[in-house]
């Protein structure tokens, strides 16, 4: 049963409903602040720290090996908390190392080679485009990541430039830093304590662009993300496709806390992620208020687990049965006085405060889940069993609440403790945490936020000074901003605004640029752009396999057009035919399917033929029969001659025909 407000304590409904928050939140009013971290794979020849090809592979030979990671300690004896709990869970990582795209470096069996210069220069080029200032000397760092996605247990990352910004609709957004880092391994199956990863993606260079928290609405978030995405694509040096760009965001509202949300892969999820997080923080602030309104205090929340195993021993609930049958399986519950309805309180669609507690329990105690009074009876736990639990805890079923965990004794107690800590944190509002995105745009607790202390130097790679030569090369890679490029397309190339807009950041942009420069102005840019963006796109939609075409075929077809060997009208037809014969030469196809233009004499013969066939009509209508004749002739020619030539010949021949007759 959903409980979204506190009916018995809040008669005037001061707490908002989840369903209407998304549309009704006034972003300015709640003080929404969002910063983005955009990660984009670079299209370099080789990986960032070795000579492996920058590619993902689905087939081919592979080596499989198994590793474990353990947390490292700082000089104060501290360990990264997430790392520690991953280790405690006894995780085994199974690595699949494809021989086509990984070597000893990815296997963590060889020190990294020196950093890929090309990747640094692309990042510097992007930095220059956003007026971000390159550092004098790049230092590669190790950022501890111990979920197994890096065989080393850390991600190598280097700060390349600082500051800069961008402007959209007159508003400025600051850039904080631009970094180059290595991508992590691809996650495969996860089964119990075993997680598998594929190493082809590990080491692919990424550029990471972090904005300041200058974004104030979900719409702005998507605008900034697409602006940066477009800029990156305009370098022509980024990989495309699913998973090649990922966004992390940090979101806060006034009175809330800067919360990190990781792993947004699709741009469309971004505004949802922002508004759902804003909503969650607002709800947590409401929850805090409600706690105080009920006169509750942090100190009232104590870790006082009561063994309720006896009550549930003969429960018919499958979950209960399964967990109690474990060795040392126990059921422990903790009473929460005056907490009725608070655990069922919804923070995000289908995610209640109780869900948050369960996530904490899972992270810290490695249990499967947690029950609370607001969702019981349920899951096979009966009303009677619930009443007995209340009785044994000495609680009032009408006013109080409880949390319940059934698992191995040690795990159950540890996770209950974590849940209690999370409840205590609710008295302060929003905890500082890192969350991971869920497919619907909501998010779940992933780990507490790591400190800057998670970073230490990669001692295997000496610092890299940024030389004038590097900056020079970077300058040649500097992409124009999307606005600049649009203006160039419109003003210098004469594309219409909508075609220019469509072209920017599109997959076809790079090919357009190459074709345009190779053809040296012999084909009108609008013709090239509409072939790629209009004709070929609609052909694809019709199921014509245009992806089979190679660029050379398109280029040669355009050359035929520029030489007058085919007509503008015949071009799409030729492309269509070529896509079905990927290895064919355009000139051969044009010849064999009669798409080659005719000489003036041949066209004139056809014009004469059609005129004589239609003598009667011409006699009746005279000069007015011209458009009718044009239509018939064009149909006959099927694009083998340009319309302008046909019109000229029709004019001449018609005149001479009429003169002859009279």
């Amino acid at each position: 049963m959903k409980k979204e407000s506190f009916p018995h304590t809040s008669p005037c409904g001061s707490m908002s409903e989840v369903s209407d928050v998304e549309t009704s939140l006034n972003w300015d009013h709640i003080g929404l602040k969002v910063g983005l971290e955009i990660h984009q794979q670079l299209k370099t020849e080789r990986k960032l720290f070795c000579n492996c090809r920058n590619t993902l592979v689905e087939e081919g030979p592979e080596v499989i090996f198994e590793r474990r990671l353990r947390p490292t300690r700082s000089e104060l004896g501290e360990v990264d908390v997430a790392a520690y709990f991953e280790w405690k869970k006894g995780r085994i990582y199974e690595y699949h190392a494809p021989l086509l795209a990984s070597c000893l470096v990815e296997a963590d069996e060889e020190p990294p080679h020196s950093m890929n210069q090309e990747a640094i220069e692309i990042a510097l080029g992007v930095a220059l485009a956003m007026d971000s200032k390159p550092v004098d000397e790049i230092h590669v760092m190790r950022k501890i990541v111990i979920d197994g996605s890096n065989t080393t247990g850390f991600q190598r990352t280097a700060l390349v430039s600082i500051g800069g910004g961008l402007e959209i609709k007159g508003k400025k957004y600051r850039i904080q830093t631009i970094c180059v880092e290595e991508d992590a391994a691809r996650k495969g199956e996860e089964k119990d304590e075993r997680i598998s990863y594929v190493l082809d993606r590990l080491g692919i260079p990424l550029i990471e662009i972090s904005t300041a928290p200058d974004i104030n609405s979900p719409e702005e978030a998507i605008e900034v993300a697409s602006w940066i995405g477009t800029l990156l694509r305009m370098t022509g040096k980024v990989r495309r496709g699913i998973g090649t760009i990922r966004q992390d965001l940090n979101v806060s509202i006034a009175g809330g806390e800067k919360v990190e949300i990781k792993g947004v892969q699709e741009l469309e999820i971004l505004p949802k992620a922002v508004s759902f997080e804003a909503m969650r923080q607002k709800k947590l602030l409401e929850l805090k208020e409600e706690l105080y309104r009920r006169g509750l205090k942090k100190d009232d929340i104590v870790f006082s687990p009561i063994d309720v195993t006896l009550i549930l021993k003969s429960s018919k609930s499958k979950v209960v049965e399964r967990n109690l049958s474990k060795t040392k399986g126990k059921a422990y519950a903790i009473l929460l006085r005056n907490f009725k309805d608070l655990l069922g309180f919804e923070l995000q669609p289908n995610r209640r405060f109780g869900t948050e507690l369960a996530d904490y329990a899972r992270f810290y105690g490695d249990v499967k889940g947690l029950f609370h009074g607001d969702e019981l009876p349920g899951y096979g736990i009966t009303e009677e069993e619930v009443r007995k639990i209340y009785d044994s805890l000495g609680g009032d079923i009408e006013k109080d609440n409880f949390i319940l965990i059934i698992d191995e004794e040690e795990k159950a107690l540890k996770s209950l403790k974590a849940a209690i800590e999370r409840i205590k944190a609710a008295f302060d509002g929003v905890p500082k945490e890192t969350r991971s995105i869920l497919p619907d745009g909501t998010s779940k607790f992933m780990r507490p936020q790591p400190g800057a202390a998670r970073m230490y130097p990669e001692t295997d790679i000496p610092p890299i000074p940024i030389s004038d030569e590097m900056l020079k090369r970077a300058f040649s890679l500097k992409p124009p901003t999307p606005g600049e490029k649009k203006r160039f397309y419109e003003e210098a190339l004469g594309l219409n605004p909508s075609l220019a807009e469509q072209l920017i950041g599109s997959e076809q942009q790079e090919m357009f640029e190459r074709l345009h420069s190779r053809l040296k102005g012999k084909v009108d840019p609008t013709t090239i752009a509409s072939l790629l963006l209009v004709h070929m796109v609609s052909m694809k939609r019709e199921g014509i396999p245009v992806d089979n075409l190679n660029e050379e075929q398109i280029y040669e077809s355009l050359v035929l057009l520029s030489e007058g060997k085919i007509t503008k009208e015949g071009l799409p037809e030729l492309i269509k035919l070529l896509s079905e014969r990927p290895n064919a030469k355009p000139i051969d196809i044009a010849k064999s399917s009669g798409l080659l233009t005719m000489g003036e004499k041949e066209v004139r013969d056809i014009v004469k033929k059609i005129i004589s066939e239609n003598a009667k009509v011409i006699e009746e209508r005279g000069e007015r029969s011209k458009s009718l004749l044009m239509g018939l002739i064009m149909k006959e020619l099927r694009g083998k001659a340009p319309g302008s030539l046909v019109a000229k010949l029709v004019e001449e021949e018609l005149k001479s025909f009429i003169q002859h007759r009279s």
Partner: protein
Amino acid sequence: MKKDINSLLVPGKRVKIRTKNGLSLSGLVLQRYEIFDPNYITLKLDNGYNIGVKVDNILEAEEEIVEERKASGEFVPETLPSEVVSKKKIHIIATGGTIASKIDYVTGGVKPVLKTEELLEMVPELRKIGEISSEILMSIFSENMAPPQWEEIAKRIYQYQQKEPGTGILLTHGTDTLAYTAAALSFALGKLSSPVAVLGSQRSSDRPSSDSAFNLIAASIYASSDICEVAAVMHGETGDSYALAHRGTRVRKMHSSRRDAFQSISSLPIAKIDPFTGNIKVLRSDARKCGNELLDKEIGKPNYKFSDKVSLLKFYPGMPPELIDFLVERGIKGIILEGTGLGHVSEQLIDSIKRATDSGIIVGMTTQCIFGSVNLNVYSTGRLLIKAGVIGLGNMLPETAYVKLSWALGNFGYEEAKRILLENIAGEYEERELPSYFPMWKHE
């Protein structure tokens, strides 16, 4: 003005810097390695990144008040119960390398863990294996190890085993010359009364993927076993699945960086160890079981002297005979040659070799093929070498032969040393070389 800036740009100071290209930076100035360009300073920014700033690029700098460093998100885990499950005693002797270390996140420096308690905190699994004690004997890179250090180590182990009989010894060592030390201890310690494991790590212990804990646990399991041999205990394969205990005289570092670099050559490891279950599987029927004897009565006290008048020489095409003459002039007492194939050198060298043996230098022949045995009877060059007084050393590894000759000449006279060189005293000769002792390289 410039002078003021320089006084601020010293390691440990927190500074706020404005650069000529318009950046405002604040962070902690860090110590730079000496090999780095001195025209830059290293700055640790608040976001954790280090960057280098060109000193010429600094417009102004001012000191910032140092705040207490807070470690948000990190925590100190509760210490584990100190109950010792096993009564077996294990003593760790550190010689260098960073088998256990902590990171200074501020400077990025790595500090070795010195105390047993700290070590147990980092590798709590050790508690289950035995009662651990530790000491630091020396702290040197393994490439700087030499016969005097072998002596010192052997002496210390002997003394410790005298004082605490039955204690398993773990010797932590840099990996580069680990195999030489393992061989040296195999000869010097004679017949053991408790296991001695020599171990190192191929991935430094400041990283989560380090192999040091894995090797420490495996070595501890070996040290608490009843195998009384000196063994190098390291990763068996690239994954964290099993470790191997290699006989100290048959082990060699076969790769510059892999975890499983250490392998038994033309031989079989003594045992296979699963560090997660604690299982140890003996692979060799001739593995020496611990008895009650303290030390071998025949030899009495161990002979832990090593001569520094021995040389290991690798033959190469075009090698000039003067190299050998030079060693002779320098008063060398023994030479181990790494010949080609079955044990050959160019005939140009034979006269020099003859002069060496005539003047009382022991010259032994091993093969640079690493796998396989020398045999000086097959080709005429071999027969000429025998005539020149060269001793064929079978399938003893070149490094082991070098260590053995150094030990033999350190403790015994010429004749005795010559005799001992051919005697199989610590498994240095593999008497039957089986087809399965050669690795199967993958070609497809």
